[in-house]
């Protein structure tokens, strides 16, 4: 039923052992060490790179609001990073100002479908990082927040054309790991041509390099990782820390759950003490029954996708199963004077997932999309995006960059989950496709659909 062998993000979400903690610490330390020694092929710091770094720091960004995070204990990983920050800041900023010299330069444009709030954005809308990419490479990006939901994007935009062997019109899409796995299985993704790429997958955190459904990371380039936990209006609820809140009658009618089955069932399973990465059918049924109970008793106001953010903003919901970056990135900037939106990882645990960039089969502008992937995997670029988006960054060295950008961000546990948090984060079991469809159907029935 559950196939441990195919577990997605197995390493990331595996119960964190001491070895894993050391590994994480080592990753940050090692990359810093390597960079400092210049063995990563980045060469010695150049004045150009340094001035580039200062330019980044100088640009106004919404990071100011993003730093209003609950202070979290700095773990050893943080300490080593901060210590090495000054030494590595310049070193890691040496990812070339120009894209990989060994690749043929491209121009033109590509079309990218992404989720909402997933890249730094200013009023307009303008996307500073995309503009910088265009400046440096002369490739323009047609960026659309076209993905609301994995399944609906798949059904509307991918399954149709790809099912009959036609291109989808998209050159780059960002979808969650389990959906990427489905696309890889069906052969619906182009292989990313990493020849000559300087930053990908070189700068990919090792934690992502052992995904069994994508050895070599040639089909799915991680974009962001994120966590699912408790989003709430602290002004109305006070401090919260347990998943029990989602079954608490005191909040009846003022809670939303996520319509993503894997998130909601995952949290329900954690509350019952199950391990989501090893969920059996019986455990699924029990977790589902709890969700159904909450729905039937009128505790849940609504089940929503991205739109839960609006429900919270309106004040109609004060507790929500929420994605970590949304609260800081989307809700907090607009909050009213009485509102204080926070995101908390429950003490029973939370879900960890990864959204990935993939190139659908038949994409017309594959080379342009690949140029972007290589661009994003420059630590200082990833750092800028991260500072705005507030999710977990898969790019090596971005951590150091961010600390150089804004030292307070180092305390932001949404971006840098502590090993203690990582120990409580889980991925959802990867089942075969038929079981997945059955579970989706059962979930839809339980939530009133």
């Amino acid at each position, binding site marked *: 039923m559950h196939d441990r062998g195919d577990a997605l993000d197995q390493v990331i979400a595996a119960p964190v052992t001491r070895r894993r903690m050391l590994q994480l610490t080592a990753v940050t330390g090692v990359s810093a060490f390597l960079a400092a020694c210049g063995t990563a092929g980045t060469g010695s710091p150049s004045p150009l790179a340094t001035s580039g770094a200062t330019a980044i720091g100088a640009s106004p960004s919404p990071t100011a609001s993003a730093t209003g995070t609950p202070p979290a204990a700095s773990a050893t990983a943080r300490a080593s990073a901060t210590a090495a920050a000054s030494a590595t800041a310049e070193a890691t900023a040496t990812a070339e100002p120009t894209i990989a010299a060994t690749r043929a330069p491209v121009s033109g444009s590509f079309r990218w479908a992404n989720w*909402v709030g997933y890249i730094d954005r200013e*009023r*307009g*809308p303008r996307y500073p990082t995309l503009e910088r990419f265009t400046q440096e490479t002369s490739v323009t990006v*047609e*960026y*659309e*927040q*076209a993905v*609301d*939901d994995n399944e609906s994007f798949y059904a*509307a*935009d991918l399954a*149709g*054309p790809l*099912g*009959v062997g*036609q291109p*989808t*019109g998209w050159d780059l899409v960002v979808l969650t790991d389990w959906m990427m796995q489905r696309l890889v299985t069906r052969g619906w993704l182009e292989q990313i041509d990493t020849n000559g790429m300087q930053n990908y997958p070189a700068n990919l955190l090792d934690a992502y390099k052992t995904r069994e459904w994508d050895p070599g990371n040639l089909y799915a380039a991680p974009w962001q990782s994120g966590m699912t936990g408790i989003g709430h209006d602290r002004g109305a609820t006070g401090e919260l820390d347990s998943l029990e809140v989602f079954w608490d009658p005191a909040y009846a009618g003022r809670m939303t759950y996520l319509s993503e089955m894997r998130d909601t069932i995952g949290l329900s399973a954690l509350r019952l003490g199950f391990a989501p990465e090893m969920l059996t059918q019986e455990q699924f049924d029990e977790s589902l029954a709890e969700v159904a109970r909450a729905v039937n008793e009128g505790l849940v106001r609504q089940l929503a*996708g*991205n*739109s839960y*953010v*609006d429900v919270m*903003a*309106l004040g109609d919901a004060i507790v929500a199963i929420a994605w970590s970056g949304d609260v800081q990135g*989307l809700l907090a*900037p*607009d909050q*009213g004077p009485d509102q204080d939106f926070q995101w908390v990882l429950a003490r029973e645990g939370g879900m960890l997932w990864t959204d990935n960039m993939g190139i659908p089969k038949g994409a017309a502008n594959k080379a342009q999309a690949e140029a972007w992937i290589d661009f994003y995997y420059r630590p200082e670029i990833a750092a800028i995006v991260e500072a705005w988006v507030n999710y977990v960054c898969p790019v090596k060295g971005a951590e150091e960059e961010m600390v150089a950008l804004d030292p307070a961000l180092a305390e932001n546990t949404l971006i840098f989950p502590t090993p203690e948090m990582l120990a409580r984060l889980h991925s959802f079991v990867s089942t075969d496709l038929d079981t997945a469809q059955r579970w989706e159907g059962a979930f839809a029935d339980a939530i009133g659909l």
Partner: protein
Amino acid sequence: MRIARLLDRWLLPLYVALAVLYLALPVLIMILFSFNDPSGRSNISWRGFSLESWFDPLGQPGLAEAVTTSLLVALLATLVATGLGVLIGLALVRHRFRGRSSINLLIFLPMSTPEIVLGVSLLTLFLASTQYAFVPQGTFFPLGFHTILIAHIMFNISYVVVTMRARLQGFPQHLEEAAMDLGANEWTTFWRVTFPLILPGVMAAALLAFSLSIDDYVITVFTSGQATTFPLYIYGSQQRGIPVQVNVVGTIIFLVAVGMVALSTFVQRRQRPDPVEAAEVAGGRS
């Protein structure tokens, strides 16, 4: 008796005023929020007055495309559906033939089927068409602009026929006969006598079809695939955060529609009376 009189004189007009207000309230909110300050993420709470979005009404990615698609679909669907529907209407009203009641039934059925069923049945047709050998690959699947168009034409035909049927009652056939007696052939008679007479009805039917098409959400959501129309765009944006421009475009569409109705009423008032209606009145209402 007194109470009834009281109700009649005061309460009823008051009630009507409240009802009109009730009907208008969401529209007023929509218009109001088109002047909202666009600095927020989603247009759901008032932040302050701003004309900014009015100066850049299509400035959101995908919005211009959605509006264009909506207009194009509505235009083409109206043309085809009105054409097909007028022909059917003419046949039903002016000719006697067997199977008339079946035809009437067939016209009535789509209007008495909930939109979701119409959308679903078309979707199943498009899905299943991939398995038929005589349908070339890619005709109906993947879904897109062409499948939306097919759907819109389909549901519009019935409304056009019903409108035409109502308008063609009491059509003065003697005028056509007079033209023919004076030596005109079929084509000339049609274009110089029949067509101008049925034109108001055709326009009314076309207007109805256009407005149904441009606001359709349910059928479109099942048949659109990747293509986006304005209603689909609105639905998507309520997931991601409604940009103020959505309200602006909605207000513009509203004002244009109101303007067109006002204009047509004005034109009608100044025109000479509709000959079809005049003939009706002269012959006594049936």
